[in-house]
């Protein structure tokens, strides 16, 4: 199997053993993007020049056995919501078209310091408002498993790029499902870390009391590497938690035996598609067979979650964006609770 198609942690192992070079991985990634992204539209733009410089520097560290960590030389990409110095950042909107941030988001700075090779910026619903990536001002992203379907959203470009193996890992943001839902729709690993775990400095805000940055990869270990590189307190984001950052990959080999897992009964209510329920129940049984203790629990306020979310998120969004100017794409301006209920 080609190394660039492997899950992130195995790519990292191959870099460590010298089986592949960062430059060869970058070339493979760019070639694959050229071959398939015309149909997929996961990328809004490539940062080829910057990536080539980063790959070359990484190759020197790898060959002198001084890597910066497991991500050194790994090709990744970023949702176009992260400010990256010298690289146009649009947040999926024509309003910001041509905006070239004069600084790096903390996440971007940390990824560069970890040696990751940033290949480009990924498509998203305009200002992260949406759940299908059809709401991008630059056109929709397709699901790599079936080009007639959506990869979900708002971080649909991130999910599609990882699922199609265009890059080994990606970052997105999640306010009300925008990492978790697209990861589920393309079948990769995506997580929304606890609020405050990752700095949001330089990340274009949607709803500041809900937004959180998180990783996508093919494997859990890959996600652990990505989160480990960006988590932690940041003086430029007062909501970032001062708690120490553990080695997220350290416990992965212990397995799940003995973990206590709650299954909230309210999540199996009205509107749940039967095949989704079957898949979730099968997952629960799988965990039970692996030695988890499964507990039936109740989160009685769950039925109020959507109403609460749409009041908090839209009010918070309004404080960020203010009056919607006419250059918002028609989709975003027309977005109302009727279509947002899908989110």
């Amino acid at each position, binding site marked *: 199997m080609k190394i660039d198609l492997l899950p992130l942690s195995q790519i990292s192992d191959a870099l460590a053993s010298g089986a592949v070079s960062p430059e060869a991985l970058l070339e493979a990634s760019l070639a694959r993007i050229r071959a398939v992204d015309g149909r997929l539209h996961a990328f809004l733009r490539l940062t080829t020049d910057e990536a080539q410089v980063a790959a070359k520097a990484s190759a020197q560290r790898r060959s002198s056995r001084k890597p910066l960590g497991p991500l050194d030389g790994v090709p990744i990409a970023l949702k176009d919501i992260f400010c990256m110095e010298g690289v146009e950042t649009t947040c999926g909107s024509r309003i910001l078209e041509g905006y070239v941030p*004069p600084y790096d988001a903390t996440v971007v700075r940390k990824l560069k310091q970890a040696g990751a090779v940033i290949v480009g910026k990924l498509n998203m619903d305009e200002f992260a408002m949406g759940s299908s990536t059809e709401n991008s001002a630059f056109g929709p992203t397709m699901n790599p498993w079936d080009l007639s379907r959506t990869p979900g959203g708002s971080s649909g470009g991130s999910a599609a790029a990882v699922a199609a193996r265009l890059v080994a890992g990606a970052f997105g943001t999640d306010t009300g499902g925008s990492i978790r839902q697209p990861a589920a729709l393309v079948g990769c690993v995506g997580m929304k870390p606890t609020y405050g775990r990752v700095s949001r400095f330089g990340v274009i805000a949607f709803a500041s009391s809900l937004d959180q940055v998180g990783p996508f990869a093919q494997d859990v270990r890959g996600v652990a590497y990505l989160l480990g590189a960006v988590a932690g307190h940041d003086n430029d984001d007062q909501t970032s938690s001062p708690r120490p950052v553990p080695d997220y990959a350290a416990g992965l080999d212990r397995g799940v035996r003995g973990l206590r897992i709650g299954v909230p009964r309210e999540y199996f209510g009205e509107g749940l598609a039967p095949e989704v329920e079957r898949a979730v129940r099968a997952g629960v049984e799988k965990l039970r067979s692996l030695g988890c203790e499964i507990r039936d629990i109740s989160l009685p*306020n769950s039925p109020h979650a959507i109403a609460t979310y749409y009041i908090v998120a839209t009010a918070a969004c309004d404080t960020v964006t203010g009056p*919607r100017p006419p250059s918002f794409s028609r989709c975003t301006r027309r977005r109302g609770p009727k279509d947002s209920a899908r989110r």
Partner: protein
Amino acid sequence: MAIDRAQVRHVARLARLALSPEEEERFAAQLAHVLEYIERLQAVDVSGVEPLGFAGDAQAGVVMRADEPRPCLPREKVLSQSPQHDGQAFLVPRIIE
């Protein structure tokens, strides 16, 4: 709670939005739907629930950074991204007569 067309027009004017009559109709229905959410939440018993004032890791506390001067971005770099500037400051439309 019902929202009439006049209220929609008022909000649209504040938001500098030009709406067609069909849009006024549609947004009146959608805004009413949002208010329904609020009415639904008003029925929830929250007595004895502490209001949440900070979404962050309150238990771990807020870390204040040292109040020390540090370099900021060069002025020309920041101004370069604005639609209009005079080399010193951003130029914006007058909002107070």
